[in-house]
């Protein structure tokens, strides 16, 4: 699974989710894989779709279990998905710790229970339980919509690339004009 750069992704989401009047972040392009549709995730939490790279999902279009037998050996990938850099937790971690070997269109928890990509927060919550708790009440992460009505949630992976989860730095928007740049205009006060 490939992920676009996080800043593009976050910016794209902002544009899609925000109702009006957004400052246009630089180089922002709505991501095709992301929509504002609620996908009816469990627990009644409204979530947008996971930010898949275009054409990457379903994974089973390649990993159908027939033309390619799953290789369960922990190794560095050399043929495909070489663009994915894994900077997440211990160095021993690898693809099939989260992705399911038998059904590539789903993830699996440590217990082996399969979960869809739309519920990936459950997988993240296995280690980051405090964040999951805060996310559920709307304190970690971002909520849009109405403060007294239906809200739009983002998945963990909408802001944190699961392979490189650290929030990527952004270019700041322009600073206010410093006092020395403020000049009186022709015609005085008026």
């Amino acid at each position: 699974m490939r992920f676009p750069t996080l800043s593009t992704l976050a910016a794209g989401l902002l544009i899609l989710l925000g109702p009006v009047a957004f400052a246009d972040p630089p180089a922002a392009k709505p991501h095709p894989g992301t929509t504002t549709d609620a996908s009816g995730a469990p627990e009644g939490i409204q979530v947008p779709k996971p930010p898949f790279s275009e054409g990457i999902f379903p994974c089973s279009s390649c990993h159908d279990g027939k033309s390619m037998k799953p290789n369960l050996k922990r190794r560095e990938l050399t043929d495909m998905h070489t663009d994915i850099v894994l900077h997440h937790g211990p160095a021993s971690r690898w693809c099939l710790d989260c992705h399911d070997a038998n059904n590539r269109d789903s993830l699996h928890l440590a217990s082996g229970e399969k979960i869809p990509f739309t519920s990936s927060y459950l997988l993240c919550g296995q280690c980051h339980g405090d964040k999951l708790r805060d996310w559920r009440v709307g304190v970690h992460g971002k909520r849009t919509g109405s403060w007294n009505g239906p809200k739009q949630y983002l998945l963990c992976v909408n802001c944190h690339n699961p392979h490189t989860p650290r929030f990527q730095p952004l270019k700041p928007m322009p600073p206010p004009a410093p006092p020395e740049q403020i000049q009186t205009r022709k015609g005085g006060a008026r």
Partner: protein
Amino acid sequence: MTDHKPECPIGGCEPPASVGGSRREFLGAATAAMAAALTGCGTLSKEEFLQHNFKELSKEEVLSVIDRLEKEYKAKYGKEVKVANTPAIPGVIFGYALDLSRCIGCRRCVHACVKENNQSREPEVQWIRVLQMDKEEGVNLQHADQYYNPEEVPQEGHFYMPVQCQQCKKPPCTKVCPVGATWREKDGIVVVDYNWCIGCRYCMAACPYGARHFNWGEPHLPADQVNPNTHYLGNRPRPKGVVEKCTFCIQRTRNGQYPACVEICPTGSRKFGNLLDKDSEIRYVLENKRVFKFKEDLNTQPNFFYFYGV
């Protein structure tokens, strides 16, 4: 208006009232002349000049004022600008919490606010100031920089603290207003009646957060950038010479929406909700996180809180 000279000398727009005229005629002419004199020959209509404090207006008067404003804006910007008069929702007091551990100082909020709230682009007016501070110093205004502009934020060793109107429960700004042009609404939003403000700027001197901003010049707002969804006490286009401030996006929040700064924040640092609703996210923050009020020692009692979400 910047280079525009009055076409006639002050007080000379109207023919002088005839010596034998009635008292009524004289007063009418005098009023018009005064309005003209005060504004440089007739940018201010008689109705506007005689308009009372917003709080004293009857329902009908409010509607006629709004009607007049909408016509003015239509003439000025060439598009329909809706001026709402949505009242406070009963049982709601708005609260705001900002997560200092997550804000990265990207200033998306500053510019989203400018767009949403029809601030003057030139001269520049911004309601949110993002302060870059030293981690070693903590929240220390002696070590705050609002003009930082690196290639990327966050910068090593720094944290970021956006400051805007704190919507105090004891606002010093409303206390000092000599004409009562600014007050705290029932839902806790401190508002300004731009038509009643005399531009004395006492409120700016009184505010310890630098949250009030003055229109020193004629506000320049390009017509294609006007946000047509406005509120009388909020983001309607302002005239020159009045003070303005953050209203928690009164035109959005009184209709149930989040403020523009909450919606834009890429890190989800900004939390907003009803302080009286015990299930709201804002109450969760207040009850479960490490929270502080900015300049708490001044007893302004802000409804704007800072917290550490980690």
